[in-house]
């Protein structure tokens, strides 16, 4: 008999070692666990294609077999349409507008912690658990849920979770937050989980082989890749590009500019179909404006505040002063200029290991 306080939880199982271990840990801990695997995407089944990571039929099968191994029910939840509309489309449109998107954050926001969470609720679960390396804690003084980095700083995935609301956090569990990746693999091996040695997925789950160009071409046709000019900030033409969507801010390779100093992409001008390039010094930004902001540690940013801002997943972070801007946006003044502040990426604000909140970078200044 499962003790009443633990109750029923659903675990989002991707077929990977993290979520599999999370499910096993919860089960051993006395929860009544149900495994759910999202069916998000139909991989193209050409013989030569490398199957994209995540949610391929093999992954669904792996998740099901782990569920069998642990002894929990397992269901596949069809979220293909929502994923296509909310994540894939968002991704494509962002690139077409010259931004560099982060679809994983979007997937967490719209798919996992909304639609999948609702599904879990419909199944009578009091929470949805995932294998994210992050921690949710209830701060008794503030009477708010706070989000913290995972204990394993190298694996920490809190960056991808900045959109979480209080309501969601009350119903989500991160069983791996206090563990290191090494510990998790150990646990998986000890539990004899068949996926213990499975390779990590690194790419975007719906783009096989990391081949963004081919993906965009297939969706939008070759015409979107129109060659154009590469110019410097003064408008002088430095060279030509093969199509804006092959470039991202901070990129150095592929510019083909013959010059004494290396050049980097500073910005993408979709109106003029130009890549604006410049020297490394020009790539530095003193600050940024972020929109679509979500605050976790407090309901709203009331005044200026010091915070550590991460502008990319693998960015070490930079000290800044954040202040409320117009329309709920955030002004971020960097104490030390940072390289390649990229519109479309997320700016996530930390104090210590606590995630204050975050937003989407609109522009650098």
């Amino acid at each position, binding site marked *: 008999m499962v003790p009443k306080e633990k109750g029923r939880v659903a675990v989002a199982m991707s077929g990977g070692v993290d979520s599999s271990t999370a499910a096993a840990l919860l089960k051993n801990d006395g929860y009544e666990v*149900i495994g759910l695997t999202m*069916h998000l995407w139909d991989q193209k089944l050409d013989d030569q294609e490398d199957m994209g990571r995540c949610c391929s039929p093999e992954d669904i099968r792996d998740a099901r077999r782990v569920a069998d191994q642990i002894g929990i*029910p397992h*269901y*596949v939840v*069809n979220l*293909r349409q929502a994923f296509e509309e909310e994540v894939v489309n968002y991704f494509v449109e962002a690139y077409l507008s010259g931004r560099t998107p982060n679809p994983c954050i979007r997937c967490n926001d719209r798919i996992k912690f909304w639609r999948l969470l609702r*599904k879990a*609720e*419909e*199944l*009578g679960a009091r929470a949805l658990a995932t294998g994210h390396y992050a921690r949710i804690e209830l701060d008794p003084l503030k009477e708010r849920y706070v989000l913290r980095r995972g204990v394993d700083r190298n694996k920490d995935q809190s960056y991808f979770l900045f959109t979480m609301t209080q309501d969601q956090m009350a119903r989500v569990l991160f069983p791996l937050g206090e563990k290191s990746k090494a510990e998790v693999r150990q646990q998986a091996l000890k539990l004899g989980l068949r996926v213990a040695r499975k390779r990590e997925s690194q790419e975007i789950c719906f783009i096989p082989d990391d081949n963004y160009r081919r993906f965009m071409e297939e969706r939008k046709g070759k015409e979107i890749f129109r060659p154009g000019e590469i110019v410097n900030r003064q408008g002088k033409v430095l060279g030509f590009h093969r199509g804006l969507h092959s470039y991202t801010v901070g990129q150095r390779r592929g510019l083909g500019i013959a010059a004494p100093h290396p050049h980097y992409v500073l910005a993408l001008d979709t109106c003029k179909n130009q890549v604006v390039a410049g020297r490394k010094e020009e790539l530095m930004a003193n600050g940024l404006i972020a929109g679509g902001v979500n605050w976790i540690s407090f309901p709203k940013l009331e005044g200026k505040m010091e915070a550590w801002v991460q502008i990319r997943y693998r960015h070490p972070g930079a000290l800044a002063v954040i202040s409320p801007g117009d329309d709920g946006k955030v002004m971020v003044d960097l104490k030390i200029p940072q390289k390649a502040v990229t519109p479309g990426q997320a700016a996530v604000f930390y104090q210590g290991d606590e995630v204050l909140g975050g937003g989407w970078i609109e522009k650098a200044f």
Partner: protein
Amino acid sequence: MRRVYMDHNATTPVHPEVLAAMMPFFQDQFGNASSIHWAGREVKKYLDEAREKVAALLNASPEEVIFTGCGTESDNMAIKGVAFALRERGQHIITTQVEHHAVLHTCQFLEKIGYKVTYLPVDGDGLIDLEELRRSITDETVLITIMFANNETGTIFPVQEIGEIARERGVIFHTDSVQAVGKLPIDLQRLPVDILSLSGHKLYSPKGIGAQYIRKGTKMTSLIHGGAQERNRRAGTENIPYIIGLGKASEIALRDFQKRRTHLTALRDRLHQEFIQRIPHVQLNGHATQRLPNTLNLSFLYIEGESLLLNLDLEGIAVSSGSACTSGSLEPSHVLLAMGIPHEIAQSAIRFSLGWNNTEEDVDYVVEVLPRIVQRLRDISPLYHKMTSTVNT
């Protein structure tokens, strides 16, 4: 936890008498029916007997019954077999929009290679317009393939009338009877049917065996070539144990027909009544009376059928929505959509299909569990809240 299985239109357990009848043929009497020695001869007798039993269930002659690998194969054989055999005469086929995928996808395949197919629409009960069928027949029409009863709703088609229309115009009529055999009386001496397909595992025999009735004189190209088995219609060493099983199942179905029918109808109707009494906003999908005795397809409005299904599963109750073959993705059923049922209502449909071993206690259990789940899901359903709030103002 109690387990209740109410998904017999998806598959059935093998009846104990069927299993017992099959056992000797795996190791003791294992011969190849085509062999001339004692091992072959001794099974040939049982093969003939099994054929007679299947024929008896359909009131047909044994020479008109052949065995296949499954119901889907029978459907494929009938449709492709007639299409290929008569391709000089014409290349038009008529079917309905609510057929099983074994029929629909076969027709779609034929379209890809140049055949024309008319997919007749259906009304709110799931029935075609017979006049429209008549009007669709042309000089090119070589086959009409229309199911006897629908697997999702249980709606029974007027096979007699359809057969007469086909006869009138000299068109071959195939009926996919996978769901009807054993549940409805079928008399092929009276019914103007040319080909009839059936499936073993819907009839309490194992998966991997099917049969087909082919009226004498019907031209059909074989799908599976090889030896001369099954009167050259379907090659392959006869699957004796399974054929024996199907024969036994047919015998039981015929023997216990009336008893089963009464039992199933009573259980199904009680299930229906109890739901209507305890749960508001429930809709029947399918014909009110012209329906298989065991099938009940209901939409529980304002909630997701998938959630209801999974919750029922967690309580040990096995039912389905849509057809089992497509349940990998749980999309709304093409049958319900063809009947004009709105998307959200089709999404909230659940099919209960009862079987020979369902009991009153099974019905009691489901009646106790399901309303609670529906209420809980409605409590967290935005659709339900919108509906109740507009009603209350």
